[in-house]
């Protein structure tokens, strides 16, 4: 069984909602669309107060190449364009829409019939990438990197294969799992589209062994697609990390930054992205909804919801039996990499793969004790770094030392902090160091460029 080479941890899986079919969430009364739903330049609002919008109307256009447009997922009236608290826990520009009815733009094909690639011989790579760009599709695994950028390799780089990330290594989350169970055909067409867009003949789908039903189903469906191979993987966190997945599936290691996956010939896309690409290209549907897992040990009805973007998290929780009384923390995303939310009125965004409600006891971090030099963090680090050292350098503000020890390679998976028996806040410190060092590198590059 394949897996990645270095490090990794085994957190308790807790996939409580694995058997819950995806159900449609109710429309919100007011939807809030953050202009910061992706990595890169924010979208620029193109609507103003009082404008009537439909499902699929453009609200914000892309603010640059590494950016993505934002579409309305509801119909109604724009009530204001103002700052709103979003999943980053800060207030940023957003468009508020008061929902009235459910009217869709005519251009969107709402039928559920499967459109195969052979039905659309007119599609070429350029059209697909353009469609993906127009639809505002971003990485649906949570990192929200604009997909069209990944599909346009820098000059001189050639992709050899597309790897689909269906690992879902985060505990609790089951959104990708359920999507595969229910939309396998669409996903496979989406993968074909992605392969065509980057011009490769080979596609892999990496799925962890804790989803045997999804592996069986996908393997059966994929028989018709000889170019697509389903790769079962050993369960280990953080296999869903881009670099870890490439190592696990095709056995190549991506060098330290600034190298990116394309340097080893791989383009990695999430399985949710593959589905979104299918919908965008074949059904002309922009990215307006996604699957989100609402889960937690005290949640009455852990579910997978097909929810419109912009729906406040509070409403999604209410649909799953309401906020449990013993709630200690609500996390946007999974328990390993997700971010604690400071308010339940935060709206759902393109990257919201899960909503995890932890009870009081679980939510607490352990008491921090001194480092006992057990080196567990070193063996756990999937990037082969030395977290204890990076953390110490960072706390001492020794940025050049941190840079020499490759702090920028850190993928912030949290395996080090998870495994630490002394409950040291390793990731907090490393993240501080990484941000600072990246700032220093950027300034230095700017200075060097100015000198030349």
């Amino acid at each position, binding site marked *: 069984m394949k897996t990645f080479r270095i490090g990794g941890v085994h957190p308790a899986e807790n996939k409580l909602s694995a058997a819950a079919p995806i159900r449609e969430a109710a429309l919100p009364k007011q939807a809030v669309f953050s202009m910061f739903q992706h990595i890169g330049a924010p979208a620029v609002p193109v609507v103003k107060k009082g404008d009537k919008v439909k499902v699929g109307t453009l609200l914000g256009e892309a603010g640059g190449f590494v950016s993505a447009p934002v579409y309305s997922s509801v119909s109604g009236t724009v009530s204001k364009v103002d*700052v709103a*608290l979003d999943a*980053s*826990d*800060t*207030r940023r520009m957003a468009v508020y829409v008061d929902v009235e009815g459910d009217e869709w733009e005519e251009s969107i094909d709402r039928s559920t019939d499967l459109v195969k690639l052979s039905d659309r011989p007119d599609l070429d790579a350029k059209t697909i990438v353009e469609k993906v760009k127009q639809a505002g599709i971003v990485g649906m695994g949570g990192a929200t990197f604009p997909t069209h950028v990944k599909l346009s390799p820098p000059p001189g780089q050639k992709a050899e294969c597309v790897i689909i990330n269906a690992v879902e290594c985060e505990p609790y989350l089951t959104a990708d799992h359920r999507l595969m169970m229910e939309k396998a055909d669409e996903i496979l067409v989406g993968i074909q589209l992605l392969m065509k867009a980057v011009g490769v003949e080979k596609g892999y789908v990496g799925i962890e062994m804790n989803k045997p039903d999804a592996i069986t189903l996908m393997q059966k469906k994929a028989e018709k697609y000889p170019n697509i191979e389903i790769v079962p993987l050993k369960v280990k966190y953080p296999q869903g990390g881009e670099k870890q997945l490439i190592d696990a599936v095709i056995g190549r290691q991506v060098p330290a930054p600034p190298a990116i996956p394309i340097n080893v010939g791989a383009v990695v896309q999430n399985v949710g992205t593959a589905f979104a690409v299918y919908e965008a290209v074949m059904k002309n549907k922009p990215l307006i909804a996604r699957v989100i897992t609402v889960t937690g040990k005290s949640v009455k009805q852990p579910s997978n919801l097909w929810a419109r973007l912009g729906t406040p998290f509070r409403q999604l929780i209410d649909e799953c039996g309401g906020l449990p009384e013993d709630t200690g923390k609500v996390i946007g995303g999974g328990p390993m990499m997700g*971010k*604690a939310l*400071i*308010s339940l009125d935060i709206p759902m965004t393109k990257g919201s793969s899960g909503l995890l409600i932890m009870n009081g006891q679980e*939510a*607490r*971090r352990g008491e*921090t004790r001194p480092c006992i030099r057990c080196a567990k963090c070193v063996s756990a680090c999937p990037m082969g770094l030395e977290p204890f050292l990076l953390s110490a350098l960072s706390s001492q503000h020794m940025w050049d030392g941190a840079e020499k020890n490759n702090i920028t390679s850190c993928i912030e998976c949290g395996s080090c902090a998870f495994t630490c028996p002394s409950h040291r*806040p390793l990731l*907090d*410190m490393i*993240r*501080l160091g990484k*941000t600072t060092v990246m700032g220093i590198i950027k300034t230095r590059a700017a200075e060097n460029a100015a000198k030349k």
Partner: protein
Amino acid sequence: MSVILIAVIVLGLVGLISAVVLFVASKKFAVYEDPRIKQVGEVLPQANCGGCGYPGCSGFAAACVKASESGSLSDLNCAPGGQKVMEQVAAILGLQASAAAPKVAVVRCQGTCDARPHGVEFDGAHSCRIQNMTGMGETQCLYGCLGEGDCEHACLFGAIRVNPVTRIAEVDESKCTGCGACAKTCPRGIIELRPQGPKGRKVVVLCNNKDKGALATKECKVSCIGCGKCVKTCEKFEAITLGTNLAHIDPDKCKMCLKCVEACPRGAIKAFNFPPRKPRTEGPAAPAAPKPVAAPQVEPVKKEAEA
């Protein structure tokens, strides 16, 4: 016997040759260091705080000597040493010390736990910079003091400390040298270096909130909402300017009339080290900021005692 003799002679010769080589080398490759650098270094406080912008006191001494070639020390100032040290430095270099106004750090936030409730709890590493990276922090204000004490750790003089009750950093003016280490560390840029002012008196807008009025009102009870009332009261001196929804008082233009303190509907402007006034100040300003009025009364006493 002869063995000992040979050894003595050989070693003696080796020593002699080495001495000659070393002597020649020391003359030939001698690096000239201006003796004044050492002299200047001796009068500096040796706190190595870095407040001057140079790597430690020796770096500053070298910079002073270098600057003396151009004949002016106006860009250089040793904050902990103050005017006295700068005069000594100038005397060594045969120059006139420019009068630099001594500065102190001012924490521009009054958002105590009462004024700005902590809605959530931050459970991560106790550092302002880390908490700031997670977004808003514990309160609804994106601009206010986080209270984890990064400034406290940065201060070499024990002059700033987070009050455990209010969870806001407070400056002990009698200890603050104005080196600016805290201001550099603060991830939210709340700490401002202001001229100490006559008898330590100064009027400052104690808020850093750049949100629009309606939002700022919700976030904190003592936030500046950018209403501009203070700007109007100060039309005569034009000391107050309005930035992005935030007023700022120019210390050079401020005449300390305290009219803005009374005019501020939010109690966001505070007068430091003024003697307690009769009924008038207890009017509009007092109820909004009772604590800050009480605190400075203690400080002038301390200062006098030291002097």
